[in-house]
């Protein structure tokens, strides 16, 4: 109690001092779960932050901390950012959710932005991208490209964001190839190249010839390249260094416009807590170039799907869809609402295995 009061007071004092000293300079903080050169998720947040920094130039001050573990250390890193006078802090990993909420309570004047979470507060916004839209395109490509009809999927943690991706990819792979099967391996980490490589190798050994990944390193691509005729997709970043084979396409996160918008809002004093969920249409999710390894007609099919999602004509979760146990989820023509999608925790019909609890 005492300490909390002390922290809040000192934060307030520092916050005031901060505004007094640098009236026109907004201090922006970023924390990343991995190193900023991981080639994937954290690197893209970092690059988007750099674009934002370039946009504002001297009008802002940018502080970053990389490789912040999810857990108690997160609170420490966030507290440090808030105490050092940050006006707005971006916490860029799902596992930062509860620490962000906790720290935000102590620093009501500081704005927090949490990526991919679902808990908000007065001074905590959430933002995420509809990666599942990109997964639909990947699913189609995977279903068309597989020879063995076995597709491997490296999951990180069984959270809604990842499960949405598996469901979406599976639905669209099955649509173009009714014989397709998914094998899912949970790596239980966002970033561990050795483990990701092992997971990819295990999947390849069991007959998978297309690998989708929801982990952040390029190690699965290296494993696929070593194995030969295996296709992969870039995750979060383009991972173009593995194109045209094994990487045949990718989902790219484009956070820069959002970061610019939010920092501008802080400058203008118009910032308020909200939930942003951008997709292909808003440019937050981009599909990386489909490489030459993919035959032209399949590429056209994938681009057509991307365009129909972008224009809003088609939603990747459109009925009829059943849950894994066979019960009806969406009736014919029905579209999943955002609330259900945000908390999605079940596989759709046809997927084998169970979602780990």
């Amino acid at each position, binding site marked *: 109690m005492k300490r909390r009061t002390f922290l809040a007071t000192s934060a307030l004092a520092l916050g005031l001092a901060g505004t007094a000293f640098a009236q026109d300079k907004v201090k922006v903080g970023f924390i990343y779960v991995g*190193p900023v*050169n991981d080639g994937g998720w954290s690197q893209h947040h970092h690059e988007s932050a750099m674009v934002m920094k370039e946009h504002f130039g001297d009008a802002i001050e940018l502080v970053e901390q990389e490789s912040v573990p999810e857990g108690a250390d997160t609170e420490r890193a966030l507290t440090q950012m808030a105490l050092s006078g940050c006006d707005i802090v971006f916490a860029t990993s799902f596992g930062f959710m509860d620490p962000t909420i906790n720290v935000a309570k102590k620093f009501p004047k500081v704005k927090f932005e949490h990526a991919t979470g679902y808990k908000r507060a007065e001074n905590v916004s959430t933002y995420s991208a509809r990666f599942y839209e990109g997964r639909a395109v990947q699913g189609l490509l995977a279903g068309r490209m597989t020879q063995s009809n076995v597709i*491997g999927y490296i999951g990180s943690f069984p959270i809604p964001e990842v499960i949405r991706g598996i469901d979406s990819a599976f639905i669209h792979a099955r649509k173009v190839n009714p014989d397709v099967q998914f*094998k899912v391996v949970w790596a239980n980490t966002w970033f561990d190249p050795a483990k990701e490589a092992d997971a990819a190798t295990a999947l390849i*050994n069991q007959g998978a010839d297309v690998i989708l990944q929801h982990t952040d*390193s390029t190690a699965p691509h*290296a494993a696929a390249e070593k194995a030969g005729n295996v296709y992969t997709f870039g995750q979060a970043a383009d991972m173009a260094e593995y194109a045209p084979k094994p990487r045949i396409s990718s989902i790219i996160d484009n956070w820069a416009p959002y970061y610019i918008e939010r920092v501008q809002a802080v400058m203008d004093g118009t910032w308020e807590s909200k939930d942003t969920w951008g997709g292909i249409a808003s440019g937050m999710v981009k599909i990386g170039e489909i490489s030459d390894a993919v035959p032209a007609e399949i590429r056209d099919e994938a681009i057509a799907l991307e365009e129909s999602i972008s224009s809003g004509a088609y939603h990747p979760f459109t009925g009829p869809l059943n849950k894994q146990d066979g019960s009806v989820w969406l009736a014919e023509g029905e579209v999943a609402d955002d609330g259900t999608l945000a908390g999605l925790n079940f596989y759709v019909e046809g997927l084998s295995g169970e979602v780990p609890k």
Partner: protein
Amino acid sequence: MDLSAIDPVILIASLMVASTPILLAATGELIVEKSGVLNLGVEGMMITGAICGFAASVQTGSPALGFLAAIIGGAALSMIFGLLTQVLMSNQVATGLALTLFGLGLSALIGQGYAGMKPPPTRPLDLGVLSDLPVIGKIVFSHDAMVYVSLALVALVWAFLRYTRAGLILRAVGESHEAAHALGYKVVRIRLMAIGFGGAMAGLGGAYLSLIRVPQWTEGMTAGAGWIALALVVFASWRPWRLLLGAYLFGGITVLQLNLQAAGVAVPAEFLSATPYLVTILVLVLMSADRSRAALHAPADLGKTFHASS
């Protein structure tokens, strides 16, 4: 669930690859501990070897030179530990921990420009007809040279400790440095050589990760492999062949749990991820249950500081 999807032959072949980094590092640490020194910096030396090897092979285009650079890098880092603990007589546990932290930071610094690059490929050895043999060909004769090097090194270390005079001296230094000193052996010099060997082996293990197993450079890529290597030495009760068994057991569980998941066995992912560590702990408990025997195997002067005046 479809267990038939798991091919035991491929499983054994891939567990050998998965185990090689920890086997190399643990073999080095075994020698270090046999000489009576506890170096907890294995993780730091491994990752330094990983980046030194990666950088050198990217620059020169030769994996062999990469492994050589990893050996030098790991050994050089271990000499910092050697200087501090043997000459300046600092505390071995604290210095070893510091070495790990230092190695992680140093490797991240050296590796700044190397993220996302691809190292020159290391091909499996071409053993001709042998590789085409059923079962045995896939398990024994389909690997890259480093897998065989690691096996040869285990055999060499075993023979060295058991049959050579130098091995006997090394063990004497580890069992009682005062007695060895009284007999006229240079305790500090012998220990420094052991530490250097340990560093070289850890570096080699790290380079195997960054050049063959993953293969790419990313910060913190050893992800605790050095700690596993340390645990393995105790697990093996300081015996080379048990070390091999332990390393393959550990690598086997790591690979098996991923294969079980891919085959659709419904076991919680967290549990599967923890199994290798659980098994290590379990074996450690079983082994130390018999106190008298466990104590017999550990070098008597492990972790003690030596000065000629004492």
